[in-house]
């Protein structure tokens, strides 16, 4: 069986994120990290392989993004993927969620995966919807925000929290599953794995290589036009106390609560 894991490079959480108002696109110039949620997806793939209930021949990391996204693939490979696929093409710039999902689905189609895993959201666009888009194009069953996944009788038994409590759902493969951060504790890559990551096969593909129709991606192929970026209504900044002397801090909190008749 083959597991494909969708990964993405996102701006470092500590870096201020911003949209370029002229283009409506995210300024990705400061980016340099694998999306933290994606590390849980890779770990989930590794645990399925190590669990032994399914014979996993290959774990393939797949990403879409500019040249710099190669670093996300190297990280993914250092965490356990056997090889990676990098979809990169100028025609993809400005793709919205639906166009991105379509492009990723076409890239995945060439791999014929038995299971597609991804992180439930990305730290940049917060698009925790990409799994559902990919699944519809691949015509596979799908579930998002999965926090427990076991293999039983060749099917996936998934648990997740939904609006009315915890749901348990049985999913046939091939399937697209996005995982939440509670599903596992990702391992740290070994130094050897980090050093060896650049030597693992990396397949760079352009849109024509995977049969993506150019008019369905990029800014022109996107069905949403985002514009008019504006600041949210100003909210009075709250008071901040740096705790140095805890006795004093507590007195300040009490005074604040007292003033508002909250005690």
């Amino acid at each position, binding site marked *: 069986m083959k597991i494909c894991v969708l990964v993405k490079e996102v701006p470092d959480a500590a870096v201020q994120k911003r949209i370029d108002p002229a283009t409506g696109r995210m300024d990705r110039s400061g980016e340099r990290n694998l999306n933290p949620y994606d590390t849980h997806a890779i770990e989930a793939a590794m645990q399925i392989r190590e669990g032994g209930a399914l014979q996993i021949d290959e774990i393939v990391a797949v990403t879409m993004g500019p040249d710099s996204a190669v670093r996300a693939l190297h990280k993914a490979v250092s965490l356990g993927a056997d090889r990676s696929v990098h979809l990169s093409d100028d025609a993809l710039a400005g793709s919205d969620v639906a166009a991105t*999902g379509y492009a990723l689905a076409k890239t995945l189609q060439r791999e014929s995966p038995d299971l597609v895993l991804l992180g439930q959201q990305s730290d940049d666009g917060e698009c925790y*919807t990409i799994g559902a888009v990919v699944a519809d194009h691949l015509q596979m069953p799908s579930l998002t925000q999965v926090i427990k996944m076991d293999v039983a009788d060749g099917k996936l038994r998934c648990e997740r929290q939904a*609006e009315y409590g*915890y749901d348990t759902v049985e999913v*046939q493969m091939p399937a697209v599953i996005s995982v939440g951060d509670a599903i596992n504790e990702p391992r740290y890559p070994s130094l050897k794995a980090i050093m060896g990551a650049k030597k693992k096969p990396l397949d760079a593909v352009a849109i024509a290589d995977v049969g993506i129709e150019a008019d369905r991606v990029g800014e022109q192929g996107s069905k949403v036009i985002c514009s008019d970026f*504006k600041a*949210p209504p100003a909210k009075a900044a709250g008071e901040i106390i740096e705790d140095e002397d805890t006795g004093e801090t507590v007195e300040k909190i009490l005074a604040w609560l007292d003033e508002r008749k909250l005690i």
Partner: protein
Amino acid sequence: MAQNDILVYALHYDGALNKNSLGAVSEGARLAKELGGACHVLALGGDDLTTELCASAGAHGAEKVFRVNGPEGLAQPVIDAMAQVMDDGGHRYALFGGGLLGFEIGAGLAARLNAGVTMEVTAVRVADGELLAERPIHGDSSISTSRYRDRGIIIGRLNAFEAHEVDGASAEVQDVRVEFSPWSTQATMVKRGEQRGADVNIEDAKVLAAGGRGLGKAEGFDALEELAGALGGTVAATRAVVDAGWYPYAAQIGQTGKTVSPKLYLAAGISGAIQHKVGMQSSENIVAINKDANAPIFEFSDLGIVGDLNKIVPKLTAAVKARKGG
């Protein structure tokens, strides 16, 4: 004109329509009226989806409810149903209240219909006969506006759309037969709505002391319970710690938990992710304790304390007790 009709998805559970879905119905009715169309609702389920329950969506402005017999609680059968109804009826827009299923259905529907989709929407307005959707981005530091080239799928943020009742109106209920896609039937619900942990009531509390991953371990809640007790309040929790099994699901705030607005919300060790914020931002007074000065929660708290909660919480408890005792 059928293309001015808006199709709203209504989730139901245990014989009641979801509050956020009803908010979306009210919002859909308001927008459809401005566009010169009607608000239609789609609901999918089994025998509990009674004619009476469906018709009750009329009280929030729905003219017609399409009722589809199918498996509840999963997104893909609803995608099939909504795609069919929108293709037959010519609806240009679909609208969802905030919720996990809404995100899944909306995104899948966008793929199916080759439509545009916007999630986490906080406001929708009509301009030149089209819908424009506002969405806060980058941790709510900026707001972008979405327009749609063709069809548009708009997914609201939790609690973004308020439910309004209109007098005694009842919606027409129309049964629709849907042939589900093969892959839509390859996921099956084994158990739905399982409650994990004790049944606690946090929605009526005037004071809530909420704990997140920063508590470090399940036992971290002991100190928080003492503080809540001293303040005459109750303890609440984030999704992360509930998923980890540290605290009961019934005490969870946010996207797939409860929405609260107490007089005092004291957040301990909570970073303040959007999924949490949507469930507590209307609290009257928000106090946050977190050791990370960059935690987003400080951006929407009234009083923020940067420090170690393990040091602060016990001392604060003692001080509150002393104050009340004296």
